């Protein structure tokens, strides 16, 4: 093996290491968005203001849903303390907007109800949405 070839292999390994490392870091930052989770058809929007699994779902999907909900909870908590209202009230108010913005075929669940898919008509909203 020539010296030049050895150098090329070494350079190749170095590039692969850097790219691979970046890829892993990128994957960690690129957590699935709420929209991509809804698009799986296995995740729906609950009237509580949080996402939930429509069926049983995989452990990985559950983890991703939890990750989104943790971030939502933090945002709801901030707004609730800024406005002097309950976290649950902010979350319920958010649910009105979230459900209103669903695309056709996406799942949602009203208080005390079962999962339903948004059809061509605008989705039903909880009575308190006004």
């Amino acid at each position, binding site marked *: 093996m020539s010296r030049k070839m050895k150098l090329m292999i070494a350079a190749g390994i170095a590039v692969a290491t850097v790219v691979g490392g970046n890829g892993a870091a990128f994957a960690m930052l690129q*957590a699935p*968005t709420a*929209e991509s989770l809804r698009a799986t058809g296995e995740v729906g929007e609950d009237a509580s203001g949080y996402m939930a699994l429509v069926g049983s779902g995989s452990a990985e999907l559950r983890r991703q849903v939890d990750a989104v909900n943790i971030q*939502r909870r933090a945002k709801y908590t901030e707004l609730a303390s800024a406005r002097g209202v309950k976290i649950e*009230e902010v979350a319920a*108010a958010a649910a*009105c*907007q979230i459900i209103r913005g669903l695309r056709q075929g996406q799942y949602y669940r009203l208080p005390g109800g079962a999962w339903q898919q948004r059809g061509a008509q605008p989705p039903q909203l909880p009575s308190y*949405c*006004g």
Partner: protein
Amino acid sequence: MISRPLAAAIVPALLAGCVQVSAPEKPIEINLNINIRQEVIVRLQEDVRDLIQENPGVF
């Protein structure tokens, strides 16, 4: 010193007072909670719309 007939008259009156106060209080409290909640949720709509727009990945 309170006479026995007087005490006999006061004690039931106090008990009756307690019952009368606590009984109507419960349903009124529930109604107020529902009203406050609906009003708050309607009032929060604009704030929540902004929150959702500022956090597209989470909503």
